[in-house]
């Protein structure tokens, strides 16, 4: 039953709309006709008046003419009133039908993305503004490694400080630099391979321009660090095994405690720490970097 009622109301709406259009048209025509008619009437009356002056027999003609004009005006007045009433009724019927259709068609389908954008969920993480990370200076390996070895010494003990210096400079341990270190110091390739793979700070493969360290300390784990890591990886489309996204912009690392447990869950992006995050908040915090605002 509802369907036919719905159909009938839609149909009524269309009829009403048509009626409104017709009435408006009629009124316009009648108005235009009146505007055209008026000068003609005036001319005939003036012409008759001139004739009456010559001979009186025209007098009844003038009176008839006046009667006709006045009758026409009255009659037009009545007709316009009727059309106006019809127009008013048709319009209100159309409005009522349209509103009923809109109402029963369930509340207006609100476009969700506009809702989200309209609400522009307040940026949960503070927008990080980061200087462009050094892309790994291209200073020739030779000179750099020599300088490091000078500084830290050649003994086996200097292995870790040297690796740390290389890592700080290139943001990862390039193989050529490691070979140079072996040649210049007593450190054996075995020791370098052993140490560089043992300690989590060192990486053999190049990293993204920005490093996102998600803290997986106890407090952060309990506060949902796993959810944040998964959401970051999903949002940055990082494949299962890897830890850097396709455009080599972000590397997502999971590190043990960063030491800000009361701000759990925490992520560190290139040294800047952001706390009290939600999965979406973490991604928003990165948006500031991925498409840096023009400011």
């Amino acid at each position: 039953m509802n369907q036919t009622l719905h159909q009938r109301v839609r149909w009524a709406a269309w009829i009403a709309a048509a009626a409104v259009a017709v009435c408006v048209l009629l009124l316009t025509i009648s108005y235009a006709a009146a505007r055209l008619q008026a000068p003609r009437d005036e001319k005939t009356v003036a012409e008759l008046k001139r004739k009456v002056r010559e001979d009186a027999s025209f007098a009844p003609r003038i009176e008839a003419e006046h009667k006709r004009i006045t009758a026409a005006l009255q009659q037009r007045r009545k007709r316009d009133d009727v059309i106006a009433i019809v127009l008013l009724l048709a319009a209100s019927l159309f409005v009522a039908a349209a509103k009923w259709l809109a109402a029963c068609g369930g509340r207006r389908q609100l476009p969700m993305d506009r809702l989200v954008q309209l609400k522009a969920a307040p940026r949960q993480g503070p927008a990080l503004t980061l200087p462009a990370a050094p892309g790994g200076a291209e200073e020739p390996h030779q000179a750099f490694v020599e300088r490091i070895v000078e500084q830290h010494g050649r003994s086996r003990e200097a292995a870790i400080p040297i690796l740390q210096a290389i890592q700080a400079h290139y943001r990862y341990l390039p193989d050529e630099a490691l070979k140079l270190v072996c040649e210049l110091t007593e450190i054996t390739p075995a020791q370098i391979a052993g140490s560089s793979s043992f300690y989590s700070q060192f990486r053999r493969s190049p990293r993204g321009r920005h490093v996102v360290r998600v803290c997986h300390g106890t407090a952060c784990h309990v506060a949902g660090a796993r959810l944040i890591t998964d959401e970051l990886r999903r949002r940055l489309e990082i494949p299962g095994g890897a830890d850097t996204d396709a455009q080599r912009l972000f590397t997502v690392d999971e590190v043990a405690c960063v030491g800000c447990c009361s701000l759990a869950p925490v992520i560190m992006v290139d040294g800047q720490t952001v706390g009290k995050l939600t999965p979406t908040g973490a991604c928003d915090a990165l948006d500031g970097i991925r498409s840096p605002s023009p400011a």
Partner: protein
Amino acid sequence: MSDQTTRRGALARAARGAAALALGGSAFYLVRKADGQIVWNVDSARCINSRLGVTNVEACNLCTTECVVPLSAVRAVNEYSKCGRCYICPAYFNITSAVDEKGLPSEKLCPRDAIERKPIGDIDPDDPANNFYEYIIDEVKCDGCGKCVMACKEPLGLGSIVLRVRHSLCVDCNRCAISTACPKDAILQVPIEKAFDHVQLGSHD
């Protein structure tokens, strides 16, 4: 909360009080000098149709054309007590038209033929000039074109016909279209009592 909010609350209330006072005050000022009901009215002393000293000029029919109400809300009204009940009424006949055999002008003045000429009492056929006729304006047909008013005034007539706003028709617009169009600012809003008294035709400009 802290004192800051309550102070701001007090400020808001004070502002509201001040606004209320301002509104109330100006309202009181207006009410004190207020009028009763006012209506639109044709000031016959200003309307060129009825004003003395303005002759052989085409009657101004702005009242007909400008009024928002179809067929206008202004009508010609014949104050019978002032009407001369003349045998040949300059407002009824167009005295400039040719005279027919009975000695009456052949053409009627009113374009709408809205005036009816009715003899009063018994008519003495052989002394036509002394008979009395009554001229009754049919308010349905009349559209206030002002020709009869122009014709009936001094020196030709006694000026018993004037244009008047018919309040049953008048919609009492806040801005009367005629009043803006009227070249002599003759349409004004006057208290209801003054609307109907027959202003002595004197020209005051």
